[in-house]
């Protein structure tokens, strides 16, 4: 269509890097907040340093990698049921 050859901001790899760096900075800042407020948790383990941060990180990696592993067993051709 009309914007077929238009260069977009995200086409530049540098700009994508900027977003990624911003994510790094925000993540670091979120860890720093651990020193400045008292968490009202429900369980003791919530008070471990950066519990939510590393739990989220590890949960995500384990979900994606085990799903990838699952593919070995359950992946079939697209027309398998046809």
């Amino acid at each position: 269509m009309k914007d077929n050859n238009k260069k977009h901001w995200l086409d530049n790899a540098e700009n994508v890097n900027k977003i990624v760096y911003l994510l790094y900075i925000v993540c670091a800042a979120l860890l720093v907040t651990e020193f400045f407020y008292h968490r009202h948790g429900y369980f003791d383990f919530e008070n471990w340093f950066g519990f939510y941060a590393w739990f989220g990180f590890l949960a995500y990696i384990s979900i994606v990698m085990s799903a990838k592993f699952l593919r070995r067993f359950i992946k079939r051709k697209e027309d398998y049921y046809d």
Partner: protein
Amino acid sequence: MTNILFHPAIILILGGLVQTILPTQLRRIFLLALPVLGAFVLVNLDAGFYGQFHVFNYELTLLRVDELSFIFSLIFLIALFIVAIYAWQEKDKLQLASMFVYAGAAIGAVLAGDLLTLFIFWEVTAISSALLIWANKTKGALRAGQRYFIIHVTSGLFLLIGAILHYHSTGSLAFDHIGTESLSGWLILIAFAIKCAFPLLHNWLQDSYPEASVVGTVALSVYTTKLAVYALARGYAGTEMLIWIGALMTAFPIFFAVIENDLRRVLSYSLNNQLGFMVVGIGVGTEMALNGTVAHAFAHILYKALLFMSMGAVLYRVGTTKASELGGLYKSMPWTAGFCIIGAMSISAFPLLSGFISKAMILTAAANEGHWLIWLVLLFASAGVLDHSGIKVPFFSFFAHDSGKRCAEAPANMLIAMGIAAAFCIVIGVYPSLLYNLLPHTVDFIPYTASHVITQLQLLLFSALAFVVLFRSNLYPPEIPSTNLDFDWFYRKPGAYLARGFATMISRGEENILCALKKLTFVVGSRLHRHHGPQGILSRTWPTGSMVMWVAFLLGAYLIFYYIY
């Protein structure tokens, strides 16, 4: 209430049928007016029972309005209004009719005060939603619709048998708390479990929803499963087993969602996972947990419809929702991409969006009851939601590598529908009290505390960080055209094979029996011919000797009987 027409469900069902004879422009406005009229009638009904009458000995209640049925009916009507805008250009009148009958029946089921009325509307949703799937007219839709239909009619059968047994043991058909103390309770629970896509009963959902039309899938995503959530909340609140089932439901679909290629199927797995959160809330059963479930259903209907609408728009413009064929679409469809991101962030429960203020209640309620393991599973599943719905759906369709596909932006009516749904996600997220005031119980929960906001952001952004790490190191599983086996394999492969084998066996058996019958008639015939035919011994004129023989035989028999008695 004296007039049966003052029932939101009847208005929608009749209206859905009437629209088929209207000219195009009038039909469009008429369809938009129906949910508005339905909502007007609903809001003006005071809490209470209406439309009570007797059929044989059964006392039926057509309409029960209380906090729980009100909020579910309301969100069903709001969703229908949005879907009607989304379907503005839809020309297939049959599809529109099944959609409105389906929505009306779902509202009728929610408002039903007794199990028999519930059953009738339950079956009407099954039939109309199957028609909605078939309306897509593809081979895949036809087959998936057949499987869907069989499964949902079965669910209705369980409900009917359960309801009859329930009546015989309690003497009442009223639909209140049922519980699992009796056989009838179990049967009705199975009916609800099928419709709620419990683990191992879930495949109809991922099987059929992606096969429906652009518009059809959006409507399907709203009603069937949330009707089941309503029914479970009404009949089985506090049933502990549901906590574990719900937790399992949040966890296992995410693995399938991660490797699924069809993005509408990814959203179907994700829908299944969201239902898990609601089922946990029902199982916990405290006031806060039930509030959380209802709030989550309300928020979920809007952001899930929004996500399905955005993928529907992609399907409408590009012709596919396979991630392996998409990418870079934000250049062509920036508005659709933006709305999709709002839906994705809502379902991931980012602060200031609707999912955050509803899901947090369920997690808090589970934690308050000391369910630490369940709580960890829900947290784990939340990271999974961020992957498949938060990142995968928008990223692989609108960004990722540029597929080179260029198309027009979605039509205006679709953008308006998505815009309204997105606005709801934001308004509910920013002003949670608007939703909290509608909940069945008084809300004693503050979502925006420093702890909640910071911990949620940590969870989500570090999960996003994990995505960046995996994607940049090429460890993230690539999108490949494929079919992934799930539990439905058992009835689609060996099940179908057995059924075919059984059918062959029966037809062969039939042949054998026919053959044997033929032989038998031949043998009997020839014997008869021999004895009774022209030359047959018994067809001769009887000589006196044989007469004497028969008399002697009869007398002998008489003698024997005489001695026996």
